[in-house]
């Protein structure tokens, strides 16, 4: 029934998201009364697990937070620990880290674009149903995902929860000969990635613009992946060590994931923010693809994030090829890291957005405290605001259509609910 003054939509289990969450929308007298992204996945206590552990353990422990973006956790953990120890990993070792991270971007984005997000635009209930009618398209997506996985297999030791990453670098670095077959795979993947941009650009997009502040890292060179400094669309930028004084987390009753505000404002991390703040840092091919797709200088339509992800896949494939092309095997697989008392901060760009880690160590390298701020928890407030806007501007839709649009709105952010659900009351008390 449409045009009711009071209506309640309940989505008990959101489909095509990573992890478990629900949505509750209530309108009263035609006004949106309540929108709650209900993250009910149990808290996971990772920050508490880390206390008392050795400073070399976070890359392996935090990788377990997510099976889709373990590299992001490993990289932010390494940067934060190395910062605490006064070490910078640079040169070919940093390049290898970036290559590994490109693998994760390609794999994660391909999965989301093809199997989780595209069905919304093409009117299929899921990726399997879409595969029946669009076999070649889904095969292309799977081939792209596989290319990303191959990078992670080779550099990380395995695609899920890589085992070759350590504080200071890697346990083993590949030879140039070992990387060569990857380049062949990636050259094919580049064509597939470009075709993906063209394909997604043809989807129909609701006319929605989000007003939130956008925050992403910006690096000294290149598109931000494995490091950089937080930048905000308001013009603000700050050192990653000041992250905690700008981003404040708070608990809400309906979510096991902490919400966050940036200088007391609603903000967004992820592909839209990265693109809008770093478009000039894309490779010429990726930028050309973005232009042809009509993305413009800034993209504030969350439904178009599927196109931005496709552009980022083009960039990641090209970047991986560039790193492989200039690769010289480092003399040593890692630099020595000696612990010291103090705290360290690290931020990298997970596929879903900025991922911040902070560790406090004692002189022996024992972890005294840990903070992890994942992208999905940062985005919850913005997601709820977007759903509110969508409900307000689509009151004419029947419940089924409106519910579908709300779910699609949430999927625009590729939410990784399992990553975000880690809060603990006593973590807040310590803060």
């Amino acid at each position: 029934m449409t045009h009711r003054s009071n209506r309640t939509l309940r989505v008990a289990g959101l489909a095509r998201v990573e992890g478990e969450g629900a949505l509750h929308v209530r309108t009263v007298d035609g006004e949106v009364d309540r929108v709650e992204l209900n993250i009910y996945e149990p808290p996971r206590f990772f920050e508490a697990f880390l206390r008392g552990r050795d400073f070399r353990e976070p890359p392996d422990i935090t990788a377990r937070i997510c099976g889709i973006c373990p590299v992001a956790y490993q990289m932010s953990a390494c940067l934060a620990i190395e910062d605490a120890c006064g070490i910078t990993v640079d040169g070919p070792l940093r390049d290898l880290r970036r290559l590994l991270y490109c693998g994760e971007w390609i794999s994660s984005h391909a999965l989301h674009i093809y199997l989780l997000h595209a069905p919304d635009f093409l009117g299929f209930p899921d990726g399997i149903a879409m595969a029946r009618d669009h076999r070649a398209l889904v095969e292309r997506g799977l081939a792209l995902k596989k290319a990303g996985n191959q990078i992670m297999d080779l550099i990380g030791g395995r695609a899920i929860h890589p085992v070759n990453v350590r504080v200071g670098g890697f346990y083993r670095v590949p030879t140039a000969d070992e990387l060569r077959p990857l380049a062949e795979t990636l050259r094919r993947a580049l064509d597939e990635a470009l075709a993906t941009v063209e394909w997604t650009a043809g989807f129909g997009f609701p006319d929605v613009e989000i007003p939130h502040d956008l925050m992403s890292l910006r690096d000294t060179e290149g598109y931000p992946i494995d490091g950089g400094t937080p930048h905000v669309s308001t013009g603000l930028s700050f050192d990653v060590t000041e992250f905690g004084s700008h981003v404040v987390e708070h608990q809400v009753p309906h979510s096991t994931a902490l919400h966050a505000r940036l200088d007391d404002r609603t903000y967004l991390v992820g592909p839209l923010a990265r693109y809008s703040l770093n478009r000039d840092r894309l490779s010429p091919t990726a930028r050309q693809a973005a232009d042809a797709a009509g993305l413009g200088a800034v993209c504030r339509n969350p439904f178009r994030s599927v196109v931005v992800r496709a552009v980022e896949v083009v960039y990641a494939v090209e970047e991986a090829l560039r790193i492989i092309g200039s690769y010289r095997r480092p003399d040593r697989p890692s630099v020595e890291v000696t612990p010291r008392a103090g705290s360290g901060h690290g931020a990298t760009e997970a596929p879903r957005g900025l991922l911040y880690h902070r560790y406090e160590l004692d002189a022996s390298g024992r972890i005294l405290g840990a903070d992890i701020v994942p992208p999905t928890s940062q985005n919850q407030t913005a997601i709820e605001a977007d759903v509110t806007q969508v409900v307000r501007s689509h009151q004419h839709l029947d419940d089924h259509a409106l519910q579908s649009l709300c779910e699609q709105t949430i999927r625009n952010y590729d939410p990784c609910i399992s990553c975000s659900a880690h809060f603990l009351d006593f973590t807040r008390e310590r803060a």
Partner: protein
Amino acid sequence: MTTVVIGVGNEFRRDDGVGPAVARAVAAAGVRAEISDGDPVRLMEAWDGADVVVIVDAVRCTPSVPGRWHRTTLPHTIPVASSHGFGVPEAVELAEALDRRPENLVIYAVEVADSGFGTGLSPAVAAAVPRLAAAVLTGFPDLTNQAAVP
């Protein structure tokens, strides 16, 4: 004819590790075996190029006879929402849609007692592992003629 045994499960969830345990047991006998977390795309990659695919997975039953197994060719589909709920049935469905379902697919579903947190199988399920591994090896004689894949 190429045959692969795929043990599906999570060894950190007690009896859910029965699939990987059987895969290790048959691998020790020198056959091609893989371990998978059940992600549909990776499952399809694991059986790529194989004519016969033997999957060993855990199943919860009510009431349950832990360690009893069922041999089937068609997995039952229970609708799942989150991508974290995807498993063998979704992999087979996706493979069918893409025409990548193996010609011969056999699934051994082992009834479990405990899929809580932690490592190690419950006694009844642990006892079933060598018997099921032997049944797989006997049931698919081609397996033992192939070299092991590390």
